[in-house]
Every structure is written in structure tokens, then in C-alpha cells.
């Protein structure tokens, strides 16, 4: 790897901190940005400490590509790391970065990959073309009413054959996203009505009448496969699976466990080890097929009777990368996936194969967030007075919250998501990791107040409650 590279960190908070640390580890220079709201954030302090004042640029918005690229030119950056969120899965940004006159390295997959895998229909077709299991239903937009009804009927009968007592069919606008234009059908006789409603909605909203019809899978676990590949895209490796089934309302993950299933301590109704093996192999196959050339996550759902279905591919480093790293060793060494992403992204070969990666123990990641689980996980706004945790060798905590005291509190910016810290706990087995996790949460000190003097609310209690049954269906 060329050590002359200079990386523009186009993100904030915890991931910016992690990227800075990784750059430091790799001996790379970096440029960091922050907005007015983030002046007191830990990532600014760390950038000042590691890179000096001249590596810091103040911008008006993390969303403004023009401003970021101006800074990249100004500071002489040669690569851009988008982190997660913001521009991470924006293929246009990736294309612009790599195709502009003064081109930069986009540390992430090439833009074509982002584009192809960013489209769910395309992903589903790709998966089906190489035999990766996907949710039963159509893999293309359906424009014809009769055809739609036929597919829906077939789906109902198929589910009945599978022994599902209450079959459900999902009708969604193919051009939609973010939960817009989706409806469930539980009675096939109402299908036409729903279909027409969705079609008209899609016509109005997206100017496309296409509709997708799928089985609505209920009662499943959400699993992920962490994949890493170098720029050659030929030999991807995986870093195990994660189980991200514990989510808040609105399907936001709160607690992730690696590996995805633990057959050694939990009895499953199916061969859990075989399923894990199956989904990792499928994920790697698909990565090979599309020439995937960075870190990425293949998201799966596994039903209670052990059927895996590919849902989508996240073409970015994910928040929960640390928990996969915690249970993996490369040639016996600890691994930092962000450093690996930067290293391979800048052109290094991977340097190891799947055989060199070993897994041991169980890891769990807690997302510690200032929010109120009792009222729909509403973000809590205010100042943090104290944030302390006990240093243990089985615990690692990533945070951008600077050390706060009642005299010098840290105000949580309201412009961004209220994520405070990621606590990654490791244990030899599930029982140990649960105990460690509870221990960690028990000793976590998180205090604060808002404008009215009310104490800080966080999801720590929620996490404690969920720790006990974190890998069960």
C-alpha cells in the first residue's frame, strides 16, 4: 500500500473516530470535517490530537458533495472514506469521486457495484440467477393485473402447502422504498383491491405502475454475513455472521450478536450450523459473481423452520463491524475491519484466505443511545454530565462522546442520530457473554439532564432486558 495517501473522512461521530484510529494505525494522513453542531464532538478532539489543526475543516453540511470535494482538493486528499450513512451507499457520489478530473479513491465498493446492489430488484434477480434463495414471489415489477393476481394466488397456495396457517402476501410498489407503498394481503379475495390501490399510489408517486408481490415472512431472525474482499474482487472472505434481530420500533438495530446462531448452547428446530454455513457460502458466491471489492454485508432472514432468504446487500462498512472483528482472528491476530477496508481499498491485496480466519467465542454489541424506550424510542435531548465505564479486557467501547463532567457537560447535537457509544463485549460462550454484558451495563455510568432538569434517559435498561434472550427466536 502506498503510504502517501491522504484520506478524507467524510463522516462524523463514532465512525470518524474509528477511521482516524485506523489511519493512524496504518500510518496514513487524514483530513477530517465537522459542522458547527459538532464542534465539541470527540471526533474533532481526536482529529486535532492525531492530525493537528490543519487536518480539520469546518463545513456547512455533511451532505454537500461539492463542499467535501473542494476540501479534498484544498487539503490534497487522495482518497475518501464515507463511513456509514451520508454518502456511503450513494453510487453517484462514488462515481463522481472516481470520475472527476482530479480523481480520488473511493474507499468502498466501486460505484457500479453500489448501483447494482443498491437496487433490491436487481439484487434479487442476481441472487436468483446463481441460485441464492430469496423470498418467494416475483422478482420483477408486474404491470398486468391478471398476472399479479395469478402470482398472488400461487403464493397463497404455496404457503398453505408449506404449512403456514395464515398466509400473507406483500404487495409493494417496485419503485418505492422506505416503507412507502407497501401493504399486506391476508385474504386473497381482497387482493385486487389492494393491488389497485398500490398501483395507483405508485403511479402517482413514482410514475411507475410496477408492483412486486412477495410472501410476507413472519417470525424470523435477521442475520448478516460480513464479507471482505480486496480490489481484485476474486477472493472474498467472510468474518462470520451476526444476529441483529433485537430492534427497536421502526426496525432500528439495538443489539447485535456474533455469531448468528449458537447451536452449542441453544436448541434450534433446524440445523443451525448448516444454515450458517449455507448463508456464508451463498454470500461469498454472490460477492464473487458481482466482483465485490470492499467490505459489505449480506442481509438474510432465517425463518423459524430454518429457511434462509437473502434480503439485501449493504455495500458499506456497518455500525456493527466491531462485533464481527471481536470473534475473528486472522492468523491468530486481532483484526480491525475498518483498517482492512482502508488497506484493501487503497489497493493492497488481502494477504490471507478464509482458512486463515478463525472464530472463537461469542460477541455482543450494545448500541448505547440517549432515547426513551418506553415512549417509542423517542430521542432524548439534553446534556451529558457523566459517561464512564469500566475498562475490562473483554470489553471495548467506541464512542465520540468526549469525557464529560457536570462542570463541562457534552450537549448531544439534535441534528444527527442520538447514538452515543458502541459497547462490544466478548465471552467464551453465550452464558459468559451475557454475564459480561450485564456486568458492563451494570457498571456503565451515564448521567445527564435536559433543559428542564430531568435526568437523562437511555436504552441501557432495555438492553439489559434483552441480553437474557438475545439469541433465541
Amino acid at each position, binding site marked *: 500500500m502506498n503510504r502517501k495517501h491522504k484520506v478524507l473522512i467524510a463522516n462524523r461521530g463514532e465512525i470518524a473516530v474509528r477511521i482516524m484510529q485506523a489511519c493512524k494505525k496504518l500510518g496514513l494522513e487524514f483530513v477530517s470535517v465537522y459542522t458547527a453542531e459538532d464542534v465539541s464532538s470527540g471526533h474533532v478532539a481526536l482529529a486535532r490530537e492525531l492530525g493537528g489543526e490543519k487536518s480539520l475543516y469546518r463545513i456547512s453540511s455533511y451532505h454537500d458533495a461539492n463542499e467535501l470535494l473542494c476540501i479534498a482538493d484544498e487539503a490534497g486528499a487522495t482518497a475518501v472514506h464515507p463511513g456509514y450513512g451520508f454518502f456511503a451507499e450513494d453510487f453517484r457520489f462514488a*462515481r*463522481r469521486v472516481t470520475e*472527476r*478530473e482530479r480523481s480520488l479513491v473511493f474507499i468502498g465498493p466501486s460505484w457500479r457495484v453500489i448501483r447494482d446492489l443498491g437496487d433490491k430488484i436487481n439484487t434479487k434477480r442476481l441472487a436468483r*440467477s446463481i441460485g441464492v434463495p430469496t423470498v*418467494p414471489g416475483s422478482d*420483477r415489477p408486474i404491470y398486468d393485473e391478471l398476472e399479479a393476481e395469478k*402470482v398472488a394466488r*400461487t403464493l397463497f*397456495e404455496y404457503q398453505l402447502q408449506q404449512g403456514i396457517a395464515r398466509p400473507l402476501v406483500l404487495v409493494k410498489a417496485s419503485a418505492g422504498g422506505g416503507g412507502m407503498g407497501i401493504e399486506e394481503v391476508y385474504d386473497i379475495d381482497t387482493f385486487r383491491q389492494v393491488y389497485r390501490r398500490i398501483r395507483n399510489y405508485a403511479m402517482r408517486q413514482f410514475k411507475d405502475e410496477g408492483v412486486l408481490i412477495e410472501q410476507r415472512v413472519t417470525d424470523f431472525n435477521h442475520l448478516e454475513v460480513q464479507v471482505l474482499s480486496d480490489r481484485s474482487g476474486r477472493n472474498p472472505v467472510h468474518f462470520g455472521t451476526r444476529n441483529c434481530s433485537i430492534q427497536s420500533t421502526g426496525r432500528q438495530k439495538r443489539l447485535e450478536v456474533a455469531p448468528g446462531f449458537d447451536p452449542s448452547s441453544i436448541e434450534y428446530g433446524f440445523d443451525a450450523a448448516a444454515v450458517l454455513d449455507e448463508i456464508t457460502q451463498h454470500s461469498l458466491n454472490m460477492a464473487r459473481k458481482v466482483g465485490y471489492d470492499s467490505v459489505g454485508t449480506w442481509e438474510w432472514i432465517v425463518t423459524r423452520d430454518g429457511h434462509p432468504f437473502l434480503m439485501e446487500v449493504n455495500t458499506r462498512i456497518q455500525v456493527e463491524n466491531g462485533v464481527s472483528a471481536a470473534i475473528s482472528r486472522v492468523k491468530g491476530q486481532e483484526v480491525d475491519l475498518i483498517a482492512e477496508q482502508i488497506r484493501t481499498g487503497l489497493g493492497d491485496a488481502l494477504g490471507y484466505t478464509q482458512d486463515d480466519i478463525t472464530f472463537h467465542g461469542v460477541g455482543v454489541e450494545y448500541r448505547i443511545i440517549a432515547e426513551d424506550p418506553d415512549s417509542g424510542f423517542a430521542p432524548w435531548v439534553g446534556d451529558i454530565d457523566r459517561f464512564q465505564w469500566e475498562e475490562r479486557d473483554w470489553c471495548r467501547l467506541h464512542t465520540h462522546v468526549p469525557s464529560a463532567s457536570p462542570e463541562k457537560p457534552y450537549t448531544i447535537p439534535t441534528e444527527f442520530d442520538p447514538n452515543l457509544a458502541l459497547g462490544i463485549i466478548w465471552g467464551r460462550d453465550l452464558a459468559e457473554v451475557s454475564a459480561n454484558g450485564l456486568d458492563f451495563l451494570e457498571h456503565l455510568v451515564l448521567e445527564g439532564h435536559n433543559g428542564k432538569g430531568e435526568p437523562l434517559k437511555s436504552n441501557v435498561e432495555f438492553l439489559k432486558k434483552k441480553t437474557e434472550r438475545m439469541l433465541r427466536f
Partner: protein
Amino acid sequence: MEWEKQLHQLADRLNYIKDIFPGKHAEDISELENGLAAARERFPDCAAAEVQAGLAALEDLFFRTECRLEDKLTPMDKVRIVRHPQRVCLRDILENVYDNYTEIGGQGEHTNDPAMVIARAYITRKRNGDVYHQPVLVIGHEKGHGEEFRNGGSAKPWGNAKAKHYMGVAETEGIPIHAYVFTPGGYPLEDYPGAAQQIAKNIYEMAGLTVPLIAVFSEGGSGGAEAISLADRRLMLSHGYYSVISPEGAAAIEGRLRGGARASADLVERCARDLHLTAEDNLKFGYVDKIIQEPVLGARPYHYEFFRTVRQEVLRATDEVVLKARGLAPLRAAMLRRLRDRELNLDEFFVSWKLSRAARQRLVEMRQNKFIKASYGEVRNTRSVMGRLGDAWSEQWWEIYNRLIYDLYQRNRRTFGNVVEEVRSEWEMFKIRVLKPWNKLRGKTEEVAVTSEEELTTLSDWDENSRSGWNWVSKKAREDRAVSCPYSAQRGCMDMWAPDLYDEFAGVCSTCGHHFPMEYQWVMNNCFDEGSLYEFNTEVEAGNPLNFPDFDAKIADAKQKTGLKSGCITFEARIDGVQCVVAILVGSFRGGSVGVAEGSKFVAAADRARRKRYPFIVYCHGTAGIRIQEGTHGVIQMPRCTVAVRRYIEAGGLYLVLYDTKSYGGPVASFLGCAFYQFAIRSSDIGFAGPGVIKNTTGIDIAPDHHNCYKALSRGHIQGVWDRRDVRVNLRQALETMGGRNLYYR
């Protein structure tokens, strides 16, 4: 004192001469001045006889000088004559030419537009002691003799609407219309209705009006004149002018003047000459049919002989038109021969102006043919003789084919189809009946649909190509730069990267939806089926029919820059398999201006669409109006193309206009604006005159969004605003749901 009055009149005549020859013919004028001054000095002391003789000599001197000056009239002098407050106006004509009249649609200042006067008038004729009263409807611009509220005869949109309304009245009553054109141009205000829209509607109305229409031109200023002058017979006063633009306007454009700077007198004079706007020129081009001779140096209200001439000429014209459309051929010919006799006093002659239904149809057809054929000789078509023969042959073939397909087969298709359907149903029932016992015996039941897992979980075959990008991408998408939206301050738009904006976003701001202008090729190549474009009439070239100085080079330059031969591209294409004829007015070819070549291509395209029963789509990528350097050749394209459009629409087609970027002037005020289905791509401007022209002519500062397509929508000019990315989908939808029943796929 009688002689004082006469001297006063002579002084008036002198002032008139001074007005129309500013700074010219100084010695003639000083001679007249001296004569007048001497007479004023001498007459009080003279005897009556001597005064009489002196007055006669003075009159003589005046007349001789006026005759001499008449021979030296330049086109610009004629323009000044026409604009002079002493010029005859419509009210003079109404009083002196017609025997009785009533103004309808208001009177004087208190009408809804004092610049447009409508009157029911009577003409009384005698034949062998019988008296005949013949009603006519007089429509005309009223300049007045310098009254401010008349607006110089420039009619507002509602004035034109009034004219259109009374044309309908005349049609119902079956009386001929006499239109008097005394306008420097339409009042360029977009209101409810807009100027362009209303003029277009007027022209469209006249293209199918079933009563005789006689137009008399005195001052014919482009769009305003066309609004009432699509006539069976166009007469022109000998000192009038008929032009695409005022000489001052042309000079401002030629001299590239900005912000109301005035062109030099010399340049204006030259432009007036180059525009060929006089009566003789227009008679030569064939855009007027006859010249009415005026007295020396132009008609003024006291020239009673002139009004008698006008009366004779309009009667003659009306009679001719009526006779041509009606009656038995030999008798008609004899009548016409008699009418040509100049000595015949038409007041002692009578032709009934009533027309039968067939005669009315013939009348309209003749009028349409007349305008379709206008300016035909000016087209520069470099197509070879063999090519033309081939075209003619293929047209014939299409004619035969259409007869066979549509008239013979299609007409009876439904009956035929019904019979076949009935028979087939009966046969099915019969089969079931007969085979029932046999099937029962075999125990064969109806097939049950098998649910197949395979169907739900494996890859389906599907052509994804429709999802991937645009066929044609602008060159602007190759530049590495950020483009900011002009509305970023108001709407907070982020700057966009040019390759994203001009390629994937199709030139649409991703935040606010503002449409950046794109090349015409974008619609041409992205909205029709790939490879289905077949261009025709490619050899028609834009030329310089008036030999306007320096214009050859400009046209050559435009041709070289755009790679086109004219500003109009006509082709056949398919949209999802539906054939249509498309005409594009290219905004980058001389600003999208329309001249003879463009008009001719348009007419040919409309004709082709009519013959083949295809939908006719016009994509107006941008137009600045009529090409002023072609003068009246350009203006005549307005009625000409509108007639073609009307023919097409009445044949039962679908005529759809889609505006993009900026569309102004003549085309919008005629063949584009008259469409029933007009749509605009977002962020386009539609109007009659641009902001600069409005400022210059009316002194009004308009709001920046005055011409905006949403304003046009609220005025009822257009029927919808489309997103550029949806043009193809919307066009397809339009083809399915709009238009007449005569389209080939209906």
C-alpha cells in the same frame, strides 16, 4: 373668409408633407412654404378674382409638388404615411363606404377594447329600380386620429376575442365579413386570455369560417394583422404596409441594440426597404390580391373619391368570392367576366350573398387552398427530380392503401368481427355439449392450476433494458463541474455535478425540479422507439428569399453550427409501436425562428400525417417567432400552417404540441397555439413577445414568471405541464386517450 380657410387647409397639407418627409426634400418644402407665405401676405390686399387665380396657382403648385414627391416615396415614407394621425381610419370608412352601420360590442372609450371595432353595416344597391339591402359585418382595428385610448390600433387579447365572437355571429347569420387591418401589431400582454393564444384561436377560426371574408390592409403589423385577415380576398391600400415587424424593430435587431436604444434613421430606412413591406411587393409575392389606389401621398378623411373606390373594390371582391363559390359554371364565368369590367358601377348591380351549404364548403376549401399554396414558390428544395417523382409515387400509393384499408376494410371491420366472434362462441358451446358424455366416461376433470415452487423462487425472464438510462446523453454531461440551480437561493438546492445532472437526471434539478434547458436531440432520441426515426423532406433548405443583406452568411453560419438545413425537423417515429409524424422546431437554429422552409416542412408534415392518419406531434424546442429577415414570406406561414393544422384536425387526427425552453411570437400565436392539446415541459416560457419587446412597446415591466408555463396553464393556454423524464410516458398516454377517431390505430 373663404380663401383663409383654403390657405389653412393648404398649410395642413404642408404640415402633413413635413411630417412624412422628416429632413428630406427640403427645397420642395421650402418652395411650398414660400408660396404659402407669399399668398398669406398678398391675399388681404387683392381682389377676389386675383385671390381665386392665386389660390388656383397655389393649389396647382401643391399638387405638382405632391405628385413629384409621390414618385420619390420610399418604403419608410409609406410607413410614416400610414402612421400619420390624418390617415383615414376605420370610422371614416364606416361612415363613407357603408350606407348605414351600428357599432356592436361597445362604442368608443367604453368598450372592452377600443382598438377593435365591430359593426353591423348595410350596403344598399339598386338594380333596375329595385333596392337591395345587403348586411355585412365589419371588423377592424380602429386607430382613430391620434386618440390615446385607441392604443394606435393595437388590439388587446380580449379585443381579438371579441372579433372571434362576432365572426361566429356572422357565420350564424350567413353574412360576409369585411375586415380592415389598421394595426401596428397585437398588444403583447399575456392576460386572460393571452395574446398569442387568442390570435391563434382567431386564425384557427377563420381557417374554417363558412362566410366570405374580405380583408383590407392599410397597416398590417404581423400577428395583430393576422388575427383578422385570413381572408378569401386580401385587398391592400396602395400606401399601406404589411410586414413581419416594424422597421424600427427590425433595425433594433439588425443593429443589435439593447435596452431601448434607438436605431439611426438611416438604418431604419434601409430595413424598411429590405423588408419589402409595400403593397407592390406584397402583390408581387401574392400575399395580397389587389391594390386599391389611394390619392397622392395617401388617403385622408377628405378624399371622398377614395372612399367610393374602396366601396367599389370591396363590393367587387365580395361578389367575386361569392360567385366563385356558387352557381353554375358557365354563368359564373360570365358574371366574373363582367365584374372584371372596371367601368361597371357595382352599386347598380346585384349579386345575392347567400350561399348554400355546398357553396360554403367550397368557399372554405378554396380559402384553405389559397393559403396552403402561398409562398410555395419561395421554398428552396434541393431534392432531385427522381426523388420528387418517388415521393409523388409513394404519396399516391398511400392514398390507395388508405382507401383500401380504412374505407373498405375498417369501416366494416366491426360487423365482420362480431359475426366471427358469434360463430366461434356457438361452436365452443356446441363442442362442450357434444363432448360432455365422452369426457364423463373418461373421468377427465378440469385441470387444476398447479402451484409450483419453481415459479416463485427462480429467475423469471424479463427484459431489463427499459430500466437503464437514456439513449442519448448531452455533451454537457462530459464536463467535470458543479452546476447550481438558479433557484438555489429560494429553494435550497444543492449544486449538482454536470455528469449526473445532464445524464441521469435529464437536466432536472434533483431538489426543486427546475428543468435546465437541454438540446432538442434529447427528446428526439429518448422519447421515441429506438431506431424508429425516419426523417423526410430533408432537402428543404432555409434560404434568403428577400435577399436581405448579410443574411446569407448568417443562415450559412446557423446551418454549419447545427448541422441542419432548416430550423424544422420532420420525421416519422414510433412510440411503443404507435406510428406518428413529428415536427421539431429547433431552438438553436436562428433562435428557432420560422421562415418559408420551416413552414413548408411543417405543412408537408401535417399533410403527411393527414394522409397516413398518423398522430401529429410537434415538439417546439424553442422559437423566437417568425424570421424577420424573410418579411411577409415569414408572416404568411402563420395562416398557412394554421390552415394545414385545421385540415389535419378536421380530418380526425391528433395534433399535440409540446413546448420546451422559450417559445414566443408568431408560431405560438398561430399553428402551435391553436392546438387543442398543448403541453409544456416544466420551466418553459410561453408567450407572445419577450420581456424586452413588452417593455419597448408598452412600457410595462413584467414579472419574471409572466411567461412561465404554469401561468400559461392558468390562462388556459396549455393543458398540462410535464416533467421531462415523463415525456415518453405522457406522450404514450396521450396517443391512447386523445384525438379524433380517424387515427389509424383507432
